[in-house]
């Protein structure tokens, strides 16, 4: 649905662009709506600005494509841009959305906003709670040391027995 709508909008814009191209030139860089940041995660704040509305121009923004509704672009001192803000809904799905601003004088500019989830992975269940990564096996008796100890004690017992034998035979201990 959205793709179809986008396609239609694109077509309409292309037609409009052709119309503009044949009309007296307005200066290329003022035609677009700047979207910052242009790639966001759901829940983010987005600022848009445009110089297309001229000095002291205001505009009505439309971010309903991404579910954020209508917002106002006010005139600002900053390079005579009209500036507005909206919040991407936390429920927004990944995709590319067209943000539209219509100047009070009637001109319309658009910019793209990309929503993705790589930073938040909201649709993926994050792990919860602690991780069971040990059973205490390092805490019990060390089997290697224990075996070595038993072997050493066996040697001691053999030595002791040998000495006792010698003494019993009168070998002079």
């Amino acid at each position, binding site marked *: 649905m959205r793709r179809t709508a986008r396609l239609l909008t694109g077509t309409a814009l292309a037609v409009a662009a052709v119309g503009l191209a044949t009309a007296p030139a307005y200066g290329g860089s003022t035609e677009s709506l700047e979207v910052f940041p242009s790639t966001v995660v759901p829940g983010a704040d987005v600022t848009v600005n445009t110089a297309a509305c001229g000095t002291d121009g205001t505009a009505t923004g439309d971010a309903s494509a991404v579910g954020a509704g209508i917002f106002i672009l006010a005139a600002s001192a900053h390079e005579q841009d009209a500036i507005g803000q909206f919040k991407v809904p936390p429920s927004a799905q990944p995709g590319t959305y067209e943000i539209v601003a219509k100047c009070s004088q009637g001109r319309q500019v658009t910019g793209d906003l990309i929503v993705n989830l790589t930073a938040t992975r909201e649709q993926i269940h*994050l792990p919860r709670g602690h991780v069971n990564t040990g059973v205490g*096996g*390092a805490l019990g008796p060390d089997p290697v040391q224990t075996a070595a*100890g038993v072997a*050493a004690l066996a040697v001691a017992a053999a030595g002791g027995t040998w000495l006792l034998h010698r003494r019993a035979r009168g070998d002079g201990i």
Partner: protein
Amino acid sequence: MRRVSNTAIASVTVVALCSGTWLLHNGAQVHPPPQPSAAQAGTGDALRQGAPALRHSPPERIRIPSIGVNAPLMGLGLTPQGSLDVPPAGEKNLAGWYQAGTTPGERGTAIVAGHVDNANGPAVFYNLGALKKGSAIEVARRDGGTALFTVDAVEVYAARDFPDEKVYGAASRPELRVITCGGDYSKATGYQGNVVVFAHLTGSR
């Protein structure tokens, strides 16, 4: 044949007796894995920018030179209770990563976990609690590159009060968590918590 002198036999016997006693005594002692000191806790420098994020690429190995770790990584999912699954306990030199989440080096929080020990003794992350701020962690990736992380903090959290958001939550820069068991230990309930290493991407090669 020259007879072995009584003195030699007696000496060997005494040495064997002493060392045997020491070995048995020491072997039966409890040697808990190292735990981080309070000085390694987080300082809230999470806003410091690191290296630019890398593209998505699954990790293959983790290396932590300062504690001698060099282990392959397997993909991990979640248990039915929603906690992070763990590698098979029998494999003492194997760690895992949460494969539904961020890959290490990508923007966001990548999660790696491994055992501190198993029934036979120490395992891959036995010395994780000995890491210090500034320690290096390397993750070799399937794309042939290596993501280089620097440790920001090493913390211990009790299982019953585990800070899910801090450990697993989203990050605006490429970050890594390395998790193993830790905290107090009791025979009845096992380890009471987790050692969690917080690191962020500082380079790649």
